[in-house]
């Protein structure tokens, strides 16, 4: 039961014809795994590039059962195809939240682990893997194994952030975070330039959540002007009467608009320009603004616009995200200058800080991480190669879940444990049955 299908991930680049298969049971999955020579698991297709593309993509979306929820202790287990969106619907009304969440809730839990996603709280809570109690995955021989920090620790480490190359994640058990309300106590600060922003990040590092939107086009005075958003889960006594009346743990209303077709890229850019200007020039917003808001606009502002990726047009886009250690902040400044001089990127970039993380292959290391979109155009990849050089020069690396184009060398130099990572892959996935277009491009698996 295979169907040739043209698929692309969130960046709509690259587009590839693959055989997509779905499974609903372990037995079905076993059949696919034993009959394929090269395959990769794919969830909701929200990585940006080619990490979940292969000759055969094994979709986890039909493997979507919630297996366990201990409401007293906040322990949750589900199959790999369940999305964060679905999990929030179940846990929030019971007073629990995701320990770590990326900027979209439309990702599957399998994808969350394979990317070892980070959130606005990385500097406090680390990446998602820190909260995983146990994983089960299917190896290339069809065997189901369980692993965590103590049991088959090498496999666990290489699976968290390992882009699906160790096996097919079938279920994940993890620890939730206790909340009193479904609201966020948010503080927004208008920031005049980059220097001030970096100081403010440092001064506010006790905040659980922090992220900044930077105007990437502003040059000279005001270079790096931005809006810094800080947040904590709101306490019960911080809600107003209307919010209390709705229920402290009420789920936000699902509102969304849809981008029906591919549009020229200026449409989305205009939208983000407006959004930023609204925040920056809003009359009632002098320097700081406090508010108690539902969690959705705080964590998932872009989820309200379904298919916003279509706003970049048919050719697609790549999202460029790198991290550079704190001590090399001139690297960050150099790159941001190059980006604003070139003017090819999205108007908005997202900047945040990472805390310590020394895992095998996960993206985060202590430092600054910047992410922005580049619509695909002639010359773009050469330009990004230049940026890669600077990232490497300053001891940084590129996020695999966003990547669609980096050179193998950039990966091997940037990820200091890459040799050890590939040796674990060789151990558990000896015929490199699990491989993606990305893993071949980066020479992680044989081409």
């Amino acid at each position, binding site marked *: *039961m*295979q*169907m040739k299908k043209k698929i692309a991930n969130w960046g709509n680049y690259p587009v590839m014809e693959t055989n997509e*298969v*779905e499974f*609903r*049971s372990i037995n079905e999955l076993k059949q696919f795994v034993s009959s394929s020579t090269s395959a990769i698991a794919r969830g909701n297709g929200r990585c940006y590039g080619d990490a979940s593309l292969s000759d055969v993509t094994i979709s986890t979306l*039909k493997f*979507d*059962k*919630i*297996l*366990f*929820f201990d409401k007293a202790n906040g322990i949750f287990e589900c*199959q790999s195809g369940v999305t964060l969106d*679905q999990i929030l*619907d*179940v846990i929030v009304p019971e007073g629990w939240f995701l320990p770590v969440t990326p900027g979209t809730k439309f990702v599957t839990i399998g994808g969350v682990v394979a990317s070892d996603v980070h959130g606005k709280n990385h500097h406090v809570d680390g990446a998602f893997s820190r909260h995983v109690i146990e994983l089960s995955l299917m190896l290339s021989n069809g065997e189901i194994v369980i692993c965590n920090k103590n049991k088959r620790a090498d496999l666990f480490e290489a699976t968290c952030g390992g882009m699906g190359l160790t096996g097919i994640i079938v279920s994940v058990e993890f620890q939730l975070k206790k909340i009193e309300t479904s609201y966020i106590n948010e503080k927004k600060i208008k920031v005049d330039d980059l220097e001030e922003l970096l100081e403010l990040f440092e001064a506010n590092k006790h905040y659980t959540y922090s992220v900044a939107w930077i105007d990437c086009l502003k040059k000279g005075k005001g270079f790096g002007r931005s809006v810094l958003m800080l947040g904590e889960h709101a306490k019960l006594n911080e809600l107003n009467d209307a919010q209390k009346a709705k229920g402290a743990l009420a789920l936000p209303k699902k509102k969304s608009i849809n981008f029906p077709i591919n549009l020229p890229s200026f449409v989305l850019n205009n939208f983000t320009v407006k959004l930023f200007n609204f925040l920056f020039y809003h009359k009632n917003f002098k320097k700081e603004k406090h508010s108690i808001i539902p969690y959705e606009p705080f964590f998932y502002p872009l989820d309200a616009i379904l298919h916003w990726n279509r706003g970049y047009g048919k050719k697609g886009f790549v999202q460029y995200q790198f991290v550079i250690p704190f001590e090399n902040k001139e690297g960050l400044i150099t790159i941001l200058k190059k980006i604003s001089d070139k003017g090819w990127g999205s108007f908005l970039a997202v900047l945040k800080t990472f805390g310590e993380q020394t895992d095998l292959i996960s993206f985060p290391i202590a430092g600054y991480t910047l992410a922005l979109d580049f619509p695909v155009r002639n010359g773009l990849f050469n330009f990004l190669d230049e940026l890669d050089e600077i990232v490497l020069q300053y001891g940084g690396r590129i996020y695999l879940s966003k990547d669609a184009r980096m050179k193998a060398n950039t990966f091997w130099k940037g990820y200091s444990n890459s040799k050890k990572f590939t040796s674990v892959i060789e151990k558990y996935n000896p015929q490199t049955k699990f491989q993606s277009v990305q893993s071949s491009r980066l020479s992680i698996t044989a081409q």
Partner: protein
Amino acid sequence: MSAVLLLGASSDMATAIARKFAQDKYDIILAGRNVQQLSEFKTDLEIRYKIRAEVVKFDALDFASHESFYKNLPFHPGITICIFGYLGDQQKAAADWSETENIIQSNFTGAVSILNIISEDYKLKRSGVIAGISSVAGERGRQSNYIYGSAKAGFTAYLSGLRNSLHKYGVHVITILPGFVYTKMTADLKLPPMLTATPEQIASAVKKAVQKKQNVIYVKWMWRWIMFTIKSIPESFFKKLKL
């Protein structure tokens, strides 16, 4: 709130229907052959929707077991949705009786056997809703799938007669005619999107039909007109077509 019995609960369509009803706080009985897989789904339904769900082993082709299956259900379902079916392989079926038999029994005989039992009970109770998933393939036999089509035609006629006979007892019967559906059965076919329903769309249509007491529904509106056209073609001409 009433409870829903899903006959053939392992399919994507059944999964979507179960979730749709559970969302509205109906309790759910999952009946099917794959008890292990269904018990995972039972847990999923209970956690997501805080309802009661149970799994009961059910084999549509084991007619002798149907009576005791229904008698021993853990609670009484006011709504029964008959979902199981088997598309089969027309070419294989034409040459191989066991395939033909399987198609006929999965789509017709098995359904009649269990629904006879359930409808007698609903008649006595003077309440209940029965919904059957039939097929547009049953509206006119075509060379590409007439074994399946004729079994579904039988099922459609059965549901129509049942509706007529149970009306006076306050029992409602619904015939659901999905066109193409994105499911396990059709994963390797290339289907036209305008005419193809997702399991979720079918689930919404079924729930609406139950709540609004509709009789015969086509999930995608276009099918009503397509089938009207196909049924209007004179037989002398129709027999020459490659359909």
